[in-house]
């Protein structure tokens, strides 16, 4: 398979430029991050070395990095699929909460199923709830022209509150913590490396990325979704049903986002916990934008962010620098990728010198 095929239908020089912009954004954000560490009075070199060691220094560190990568792959893919259809899914956060809760509920309520069926059914339960929660803003956009950004923002909070209600009242386990009962063993995603948190969710994530690639670039459905994203008028005159594709893309996006919550709940916590997500849905936007809305880019960016976050925990312990500094770096990366003109003007200045 040629590079051109891997990066999808776009012309090669365009996408190479895009990759440059992403890489430069990361570099620029890291430089500013280093400068901030310097201002705080610590050594940037030491901080980054510790971070690298914390992310990749041992088998268990790598396992932790990959564990943090999994939900970001899903939310990144979710945002990317919607983007490809010209839609902005800010609602991955709410969708992943719904997915997490309903996969756990399915696992608890269907525990009578044969062991080999329980896990797939639980995952499916989560995906369907996410597809519904993501599909609603898609449907509203298609039918009434309601802006999906606003609707998904509203539905985030509604979704998070619904799951919070469910886990605080009807499905609360005994005790102080707002969490459900532990799920049956058959519904737990198996661990890839024993004694770590790394679960088979990673495999599900890679399969999902491959599936998204296949769907978008190798099927008629994907072709239609991308056609709507590129130019609605052209797509419509080509006989493509805009409304159907908008609803469909948002539903797929919601299903993918749900998997972020499903794999966390079935793979890491083995139950649903109120408010478990530190904002995977929002970071997913960064992952998608930085990864140029391509599954391969999403995987690489999710890995980068996972490594940053895992490494930062060690940096927090060893140095004076708070692990929240990586959130600053993530924020900066998003701002730079959002404004490719900045990077272009820097590159241009360098060329003319």
């Amino acid at each position: 398979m040629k590079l051109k095929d891997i990066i999808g239908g776009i012309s090669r020089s365009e996408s190479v430029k895009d990759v440059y912009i992403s890489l430069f954004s990361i570099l620029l954000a890291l430089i500013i991050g280093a400068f901030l560490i310097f201002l705080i009075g610590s050594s940037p070199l030491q901080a980054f070395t510790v971070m690298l060691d914390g992310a990749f220094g041992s088998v268990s560190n790598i396992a932790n990095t990959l564990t943090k990568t999994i939900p970001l792959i899903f939310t990144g893919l979710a945002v990317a699929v919607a983007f490809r259809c010209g839609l902005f899914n800010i609602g991955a956060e709410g969708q992943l909460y719904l997915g997490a809760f309903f996969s756990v509920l399915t696992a608890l309520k269907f525990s009578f199923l044969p062991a080999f069926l329980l896990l797939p059914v639980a995952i499916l339960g989560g995906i369907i709830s996410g597809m519904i929660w993501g599909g609603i803003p898609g449907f509203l956009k298609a039918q009434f022209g309601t802006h999906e950004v606003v609707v998904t923002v509203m539905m985030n909070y509604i979704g998070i509150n619904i799951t919070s209600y469910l886990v605080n009242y009807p499905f609360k386990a005994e005790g102080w913590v707002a969490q459900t009962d532990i799920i049956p063993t058959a519904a737990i995603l198996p661990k890839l490396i024993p004694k770590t948190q790394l679960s088979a969710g990673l495999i599900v994530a890679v399969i999902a990325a491959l599936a998204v690639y296949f769907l978008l670039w190798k099927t008629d459905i994907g072709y239609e979704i991308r056609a709507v994203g590129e130019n609605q008028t052209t797509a419509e005159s080509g006989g493509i049903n805009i409304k159907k594709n908008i609803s469909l893309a948002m539903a797929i996006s919601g299903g993918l986002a749900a998997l972020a919550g499903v794999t966390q709940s079935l793979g890491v916590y083995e139950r649903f916990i109120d408010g478990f997500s530190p904002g995977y849905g929002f970071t997913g936007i960064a992952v998608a934008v930085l990864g140029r809305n391509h599954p391969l880019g999403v995987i690489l960016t999710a890995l980068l962010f996972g490594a940053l976050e895992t490494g930062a925990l060690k940096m927090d312990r060893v140095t004076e620098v708070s692990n929240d500094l990586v959130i600053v770096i993530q924020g900066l990366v998003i701002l730079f990728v959002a404004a490719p003109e900045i990077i272009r003007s820097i590159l241009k200045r360098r060329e003319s010198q």
Partner: protein
Amino acid sequence: MEIFNVLNFDLIPLTLRLAVPIALAAIGGTLSERSGIINIGLEGMMLTGAFGAVYGSFLTGSPWFGVIFACLAGLIIGSIHAVLTIKYKANQVVTGVGINILAMGFTTTMIKVIWGKEGMSDEVNNLSDVSIPILKEIPLIDWLFTDQSPLTYFMLIVVILSWYTLFKTNLGLNLRAIGDHPRAARISGINVTKYRYTCVMLSGLLAGLGGAFLSLVQNSLFVQNMTAGRGYMALAANIFGGWNPLGSFVASLIFSFAQAIRFNMIGYNIPDQFIQSLPYILTLAVLVGAGRKTRAPEALGEIDE
């Protein structure tokens, strides 16, 4: 008479108090979006303002300097949004999300740098309430002039002033033209860019002040992520209120009434989560109900040229 337990008269002042930060940020959102720039970053702008306020009060010992710091912090982060979206034509939604994440990371990091603590700052001098002589003696409206924060009065002035400017002056006429038909506005000689910069920076300032209310009036310290979604609620209030400062204010009152009533409802079986969702459900209902007739600025999110 159970109803009187729920609807006692403390409810009105409490509602107003809770509405201040949301209304300030919501009107910020109204200004920004009337100029055509989507502002999802209100949450981060509020958070930065809340942090700046506490830092200013901590440095100088004066909460009023805290308020000034909050304004400056809001202006700075507003300028970032403005420069990226107007000069560099960045995607407005992505930039807003970036600002929220940046603000969250930056303020939390700085807590540790400045106070050497995790998650919250030291206590600082907060902004005390004032009572206005004579006016506080008037029956029925005495509560409005007794033990109110100066920022509450400021918010009320902002509501009236921004509504008047937007709908009764040439400035406002121009701004509304920019939001609906930027190209036509430009051709007719309006300096669209200048309006946009002003509005987005003002939205940062107002959201920052809203944050200052949270950290210096409702509290006297900064807590990690203390805005807890109020910026998004402000965004909802702006939409619910039809991109109108008065509407934003009324929407903020409705949302905070729901919050206020919660304090009187302990013992009644209405889950907090329902009350928390109410602003978003109401806004969603209005959006779907209005459908294509929504009063959003027509060219919202589109940077022409």
